[in-house]
């Protein structure tokens, strides 16, 4: 039987099982501990899973549960496709990366990412001068940080991801409502909550020495 593990994200140490369908039809989501953190995993029969929309959605569904279930928790998310040969290879990597992971978990503790896209109407009416600054200044005040994403059409006047404290979620939701009410011609696409994907960038590599 394969010992391969598909990984979803890293959290503060906690043991749980989720009854949610994982990547490649996995029916059991559980945690593997290393020191004072846990990795959310499921069993899989390969270390290089093919990418399908269904699997990407399953990866996200599991993370949504981890992020929100039972009061919610801080998650350092894995990119899609991070399957390990065994629990031992996973722990080996966690051991090597433990300082960076600890520091990252501490830095993003209690936060989620929220996405905000604001579009002008399709009829081509030019947006009122200054809307962009008014809106983004307001959301910036309610968030810890933000990243600017690509404005890929002229109609898109705001495309940002915000790092928001869980305690500020209600206030942020209310601000989105108010913006929608004030500028009812604008189309607001409000997404999340996400694990802080746009605020965490970790690359773990392996080097061999001396060819032997």
């Amino acid at each position, binding site marked *: 039987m394969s010992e391969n593990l598909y990984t979803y*994200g890293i959290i503060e140490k906690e043991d749980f099982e989720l009854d949610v369908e994982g990547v490649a039809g996995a029916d059991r989501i559980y945690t593997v501990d290393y020191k004072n953190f846990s990795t959310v995993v499921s069993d899989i029969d390969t*270390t*290089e899973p093919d*990418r399908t*929309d269904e699997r*990407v*959605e399953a*990866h996200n569904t599991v993370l*949504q549960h981890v992020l929100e279930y039972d009061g919610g928790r801080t998650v*350092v*998310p*894995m*990119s899609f496709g*991070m*399957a*390990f*040969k065994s629990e*031992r*290879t*996973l722990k*080996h*990597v966690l*051991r*090597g*990366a433990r*300082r*960076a992971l600890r*520091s*990252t978990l501490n*830095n*993003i503790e209690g936060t989620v990412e929220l*996405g905000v896209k604001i579009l002008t109407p399709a009829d081509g009416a030019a947006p009122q001068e200054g809307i962009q600054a008014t809106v983004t200044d307001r959301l910036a005040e309610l968030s*810890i*940080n933000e*990243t600017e994403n690509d404005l890929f059409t002229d109609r898109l006047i705001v495309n940002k991801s915000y790092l928001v404290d869980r305690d500020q979620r209600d206030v942020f*939701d*209310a601000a*989105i*409502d108010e913006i*929608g009410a004030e500028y009812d011609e604008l189309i*607001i696409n*409000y*997404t*999340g*909550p*996400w*694990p802080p*994907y*746009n*605020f*965490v*960038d*970790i*690359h*773990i*590599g*392996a*080097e*061999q*020495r001396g060819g032997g």
Partner: protein
Amino acid sequence: MAQPDSSSLAEVLDRVLDKGIVVDVFARVSLVGIEILTVEARVVVSSVDTFLHYAEEIAKIEQAELTAGAEAAPEV
């Protein structure tokens, strides 16, 4: 009150495909032959980015584990 939505595949793809923790395949499949794990982390929290660079010497660690050669051979 407005509630964010997390069901859009495009939004999910935007995030999970090239963001988050990426681990090189060799580090995911093998215990033998890896002498150094390199870790580069960029965490953007306040207005200041935190850059962390680590190179962990792991060759001498857990020799007992490394002797399990058969199990540790990379799967192809």
